[in-house]
């Protein structure tokens, strides 16, 4: 490797705790944006926020899948391997965590581990770096993805709107199917510069056209 390895957390104990706590709050309150501050300067398309979550949550016990842009730059794998020791896997289905720098081309959810009826926790967490991320307090987003999508369910008082993008055009249908499969399914963490939001499988889309169970999932 030509260039020097970018450093990890300066204070692993407390930075790791702070990042985890932000993720815990985000998943506990779906659709509400949390600040996520990190000084990491990871290589290539790996954003500081993706790197922060990877360092906080993954290790030798968690297979990690990288999407195409992250795989394309070997410095990303080098950085993650050194700082987390996590095995990088080629098949999405084997991953406990998926790091996604190009969310518009996120593979179908069904490519990832969904858990089993006896162990629904044996399922993947997708961490997606989006360009736009806002909630009810922020401006709406007009591109493809979650434009104006509203959720209800555990962690949400009444309803909550979350806008994130860019995402695949069929994202709403995917999410509806993902939620319909509860307690199986995947969970998402969206990161953007300086902030994150969570979307657990328990988040029920409200008022979306896509009816639960519509299996409009093929996408590349």
């Amino acid at each position, binding site marked *: 490797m030509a260039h020097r390895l970018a450093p990890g957390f300066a204070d*692993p*104990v*407390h930075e*790791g*705790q*702070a990042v*985890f*706590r932000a*993720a*815990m*709050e985000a*998943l*506990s*309150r779906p659709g509400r944006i949390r600040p996520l501050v990190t000084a990491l300067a990871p290589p290539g398309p790996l954003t500081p926020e993706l790197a922060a979550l990877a360092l*906080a*949550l*993954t*290790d030798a*016990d*968690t297979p990690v899948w990288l999407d195409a842009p992250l795989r394309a730059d070997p410095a990303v794998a080098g950085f993650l391997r050194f700082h987390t020791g996590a095995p990088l896997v080629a098949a999405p289905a084997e991953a*406990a965590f998926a790091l996604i720098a190009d969310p518009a081309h996120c593979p179908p959810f069904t490519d990832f581990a969904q858990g*089993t*009826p*006896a*162990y*629904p*926790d044996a*399922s993947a*967490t997708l961490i997606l770096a989006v360009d736009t991320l806002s909630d009810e307090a922020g401006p709406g987003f007009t591109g493809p993805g979650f434009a104006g999508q509203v959720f209800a*369910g*555990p*962690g*949400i*008082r009444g309803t909550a709107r979350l806008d994130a993008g860019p995402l695949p055009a069929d994202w709403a249908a995917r999410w509806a199917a993902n939620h319909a499969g*509860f*307690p199986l399914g995947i*969970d998402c963490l969206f990161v953007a510069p300086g902030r994150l939001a969570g979307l*657990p*499988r*328990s988040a029920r889309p409200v008022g979306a056209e896509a009816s639960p169970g519509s299996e409009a999932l093929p996408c590349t």
Partner: protein
Amino acid sequence: MNPSNPAAAPAAVTVSAGPGYSFAYLDAGTKRMIRRAILKAIAIPGYQVPFAAREMPMPYGWGTGGVQVTAAILGAADVLKVIDQGADDTTNAVSIRRFFTATAGIATTTRTAEASVIQTRHRIPEAPLVEGQVLVYQVPIPEPLRFLEPRETETRQLHALAEYGLMHVKLYEDIARHGHIATTYAYPVEVAGRYVMDPSPTPKFDNPKMDDCPALQLFGAGREKRIYAIPPYTRVRSLDFEDHPFRVQSFDRPCALCGAEGVYLDEVVLDDAGGRMFVCSDTDHCESRLGESCLGETRRADGQTGEAA
């Protein structure tokens, strides 16, 4: 570990972790493992996530699950409250609070409103919890079906199939036999319309507080190696029947010390001639009320409340 913290007990510290131990005792890898379990528990409300509980320096059954959850979430800025039976000054609550003071050097409090993390055994505080707080329950037997079906392999399938008929049969047998549902604590609840969950041995008086609670509720069972969660604002329904709706205990007299009504009371035996009185189980609630009415000396009589106020 943190001699500079004024909250640390002066002499004979209960748990002196000493140098070489990690912040909040657990190493980074163990914390990550527990944290991942917590995230899945939040995503699947009421489902018991298996986790590789570690052997902690306090006995199984004494709060090791709650301690591991607390250790995994705790940050330097947190303010911790620990209660047992609603009280901050019971010996095990004191011991656990000291453990975290010694190993994490964090601030502690007895005030519910000032705490960001509250670890509890058997009670939910009387003061309503708010957003941003985390309530960590110590759980002895996380499986609500365990006393109906002792085998883990069986109960796991029952949860997978959402087959909770056994529980309803048990509750109904109570009614047939006693005229009441004879479960007074650890009263089973259904979380977000899916999983039946054990709320830990809290009196059923506290069950309604779990419903639509603004705080995050985390449950840790160390010996049984399970973590589960109720996210904020989640529907938590106590199991019941149309003709036998869920009811909580209520007391027909106020706390003898602070006069509080609508709270859970401890019965205190005063003598061997049948003398007894009823006082708040939640000591902070009682002291706060006494403080407001300038009667604080009664409850604070020997002063030893605490490391932090």
